[in-house]
Every structure is written in structure tokens, then in C-alpha cells.
């Protein structure tokens, strides 16, 4: 490759591993970055980069984490308070009092409840009502939680989003009472909103995407003390086209080791648009 010469699609794929490792010369790396900047039409390049970057990240997975000195975060906080606003900030934000988050949480939940009622998903309504009280307490406690639920609401009201109710399957044991809905958007996002997925030291719940072939594992459902869940299906698996359905199975701790679901307890079909 010539210095800073434009990189072709083929050249990008030939060098993507070295690029992800940081093993190219600076001019080569700049040329790769320039190609990537216009690679919106090259999903193959993005997929190759994703695979390479995640493999590179895995090389650090056996390091024992080390807590950095407290002064590092203090220095970061000072820097960002003095730094220019992030490029995508939509507007300047003033400090928000804590009670505003409580009100926002209540408004969010009312909107979710209203939306589900509008959808006439009666089984989800009871779930959402039960979730409301619990969510309000959580959202008051943690700003991170608020961000996640704000995100869910944005997805819920985004044009094109479909709400997929998950139906309980006969194979579900009486104590496997988890239920929920999946918010699906064709741009490649699927978010599970669930409840009654209690932490179990011996078992995990696993997400599955179903198309024409065998189900594809799409991540574990994170456990939480209250059994409530907001979690994404793995986005790279949604790039392969519109799913026919979503499912949740019960697996041994750590998830399926066979590539197939063990006991499927919830399934929801994605209807036509």
C-alpha cells in the first residue's frame, strides 16, 4: 500500500487485523481510518473490524484488573468540566436537581404504561404496572438506570419500532415466571424489557434470535436482585436481516454450550410491518 494512498475494499480487509492491533505505520493507519469513514456502504469492512477489534480486546481478558489511583478520575472530571462540549451534545445542560429525575422517571413510566395500554397488550399491562413501582424506586436511586430507561423509551416511541410480546411456553417450569416484551427496530436494535428473572446461582437465562435456520444465541440475560431486566440482544447478530422471532431459554450457568437452546420458556414472533 502506498503512503496515504486511498485504500480499496480488498486492501482494507487484508490489513484489518494489523489495523486493529495498531501494527500499521501511521500513514497506513490514517488511510485505513479514511476508508472506514466512508465505509457506511461496506458492512463487510465493519464486520471484519468488529471481529478483529474484539479479538484484540480479548487479548487483555486474562489481566487481573487493577484499581487506578483515585486522583485519575478526579483529573478526568476536572478535564471534562473544562473541555469543550462533546460533538453530539444536543444542547447545553445545566445541573439537574435530583427531584427532576424522579419526575422524569414517573413520566417515563406513565408513557410506557400508556403505550402498552394503547397496544392492547393486556398481559403486558399487568407486568408494566407491577414494574412501575419498582422502577420508580430504582430510577430515583441510580442515574445510570435513568439513562437506560430513557433509552428504552426513546426506542419505544421511535418510528418503526415494533413491540413483540413474549409468550410463555409449555416447557417453562412453574418457578420460571419470567415475562417481558422485546422492542425491535429494523436499524438493528432489539431490547428486552422483562421482569421476574431472579438471579439463580445454578442457571442463566439466554436470549435467542430465530430466522430461517437454527436459533442463534444472542447473549445472557443479566441477573438483578429484583428480577427486572433491560438488556440488548447482541447488535451484530441483528445486522443479518429481520428476525422471525425472539426467544428466551433456561440454561446451565454460563449459557448454552451446545449452540442450541436447552429449555425455551418464552417466544415472541415478529409480525409483518
Amino acid at each position, binding site marked *: 500500500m502506498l503512503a496515504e494512498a486511498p485504500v480499496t475494499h480488498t486492501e482494507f480487509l*487484508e490489513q484489518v*487485523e494489523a489495523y486493529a492491533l*495498531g501494527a500499521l505505520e501511521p500513514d497506513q493507519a490514517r488511510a485505513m481510518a479514511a476508508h472506514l469513514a466512508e465505509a457506511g456502504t461496506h458492512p463487510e469492512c465493519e464486520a471484519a473490524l468488529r471481529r478483529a477489534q474484539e479479538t*484484540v*480486546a480479548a487479548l487483555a481478558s486474562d489481566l487481573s484488573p487493577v484499581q487506578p489511583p483515585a486522583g485519575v*478520575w478526579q483529573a478526568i472530571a476536572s478535564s471534562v468540566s473544562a473541555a469543550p462540549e462533546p460533538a453530539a451534545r444536543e444542547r447545553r445542560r445545566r445541573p439537574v436537581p435530583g427531584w427532576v429525575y424522579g419526575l422524569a422517571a414517573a413520566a417515563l413510566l406513565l408513557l410506557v404504561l400508556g403505550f402498552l395500554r394503547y397496544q392492547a397488550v393486556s398481559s403486558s399491562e399487568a407486568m408494566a404496572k407491577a414494574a412501575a413501582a419498582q422502577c420508580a424506586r430504582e430510577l430515583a436511586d441510580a442515574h445510570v438506570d435513568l*439513562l437506560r430507561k430513557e*433509552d428504552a423509551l426513546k426506542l419505544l416511541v421511535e418510528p418503526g419500532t415494533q413491540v413483540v410480546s413474549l409468550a410463555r411456553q409449555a416447557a417453562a417450569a412453574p418457578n420460571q415466571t419470567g415475562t417481558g416484551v422485546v422492542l425491535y427496530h429494523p436499524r438493528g436494535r432489539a431490547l428486552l424489557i422483562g421482569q421476574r428473572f431472579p438471579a439463580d446461582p445454578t442457571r442463566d437465562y439466554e436470549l435467542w434470535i430465530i430466522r430461517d435456520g437454527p436459533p442463534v444465541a444472542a447473549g445472557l440475560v443479566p441477573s438483578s436482585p429484583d428480577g427486572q431486566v433491560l438488556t440488548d440482544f447482541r447488535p451484530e447478530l441483528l445486522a443479518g436481516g429481520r428476525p422471525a422471532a425472539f426467544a428466551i431459554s433456561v440454561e446451565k450457568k454460563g449459557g448454552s454450550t451446545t449452540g442450541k437452546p436447552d429449555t425455551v420458556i418464552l417466544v415472541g414472533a415478529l409480525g409483518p410491518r
Partner: protein
Amino acid sequence: MSAHGGEDSVLVQGVARGESSALEALYRRHSPRLYALLLRMLGQGADAEEILQESFVDVWKRASEYRPTRGAVEAWLITIARSRAIDRLRSRGARLRLVREREQQAPDVAVTPEPPDVHAHTRLRRALDALPVEQRRALELAYWDGLSQREISEQTGDPLGTVKTRVRLGLQRLADLLAG
């Protein structure tokens, strides 16, 4: 990969909107592993702390550039931190000599380590052990010492084309082994 991939994406969106609390949550979640990585690459001293700080300031400025289709947040953070660490290593100069010297010394001992992810450790070790020695060596020189392919060629005496092939095939094979 982090078990909190979906939450991480939401936090990055919060950072892009200018939410410093989202940045702090990302920092609390990922800084111990990033700091361990930087200590391993840069050694003890102020460099690792400085690069960690610079990396998260970078995240603050560039959060809107994050694309989930190009990888998980954890991989994105590692890319940012490694890129800055490699720049720092290259600015030190005489790097090939330092690499040779370091290879003759005992490995650094991390300070106050937290328990490692034993499952990930075993899986990675098994995968690395399955690679041909030359491929593994090329990956390690690039990953931990920040050597470019040209520098690896100079270090090992192998032709540049051979090094390129080893890097490419080595990482592809490692990806297959870790996925299997």
C-alpha cells in the same frame, strides 16, 4: 466481552449527550481492566495514569463516533487506550532496544490486583497456546510492545511480508479459537 454490553452502549449515548455521570459510570466499570492493560504496556509510573486519563477525556469528546456495529464498547475503549499507549511507546524512542532488554527481565508485577476472570484466562491461554509460535510471537510484539509490522520485521529478522501474514493469520485463528 463485557457482560454489560447493552448498558455500556446506553452509557456511551449518555456521554455523547454530555452526561458526566455516564462517563463516570463507564470509568468505574472499565478503568480497572484498562489500567491493568496500560501498566502491562507502559510499566509502572505516571505514564499509565496519564494515558488512562487522556483516554477517558477522549471518550468524552468522541462518544458520538461510537458505532455498535464496529464492536462492543469495551473493545472500543481498549482501542482508544492502546492507540494512545502505542503513541507514548513510540515517542520514547529506542524502542526496539528497550523491547530486547525487557524480554530478558522478569515480567512486571501488577499492584493490588483484583481476582482475574479465571474462565477468560483459561480460554485465552488455551487459544494462544494453539497458535504457531511465530504467529503468537508476532501478535505479542504488536499487542504488548506496540511494534508495527515493520518494526517486528526488524526485531525478528523475518521478511516484512512474512510478518504481515503471521499477524493476519494469527489474529484470524485466535478469533476462531476464542469463538469455538
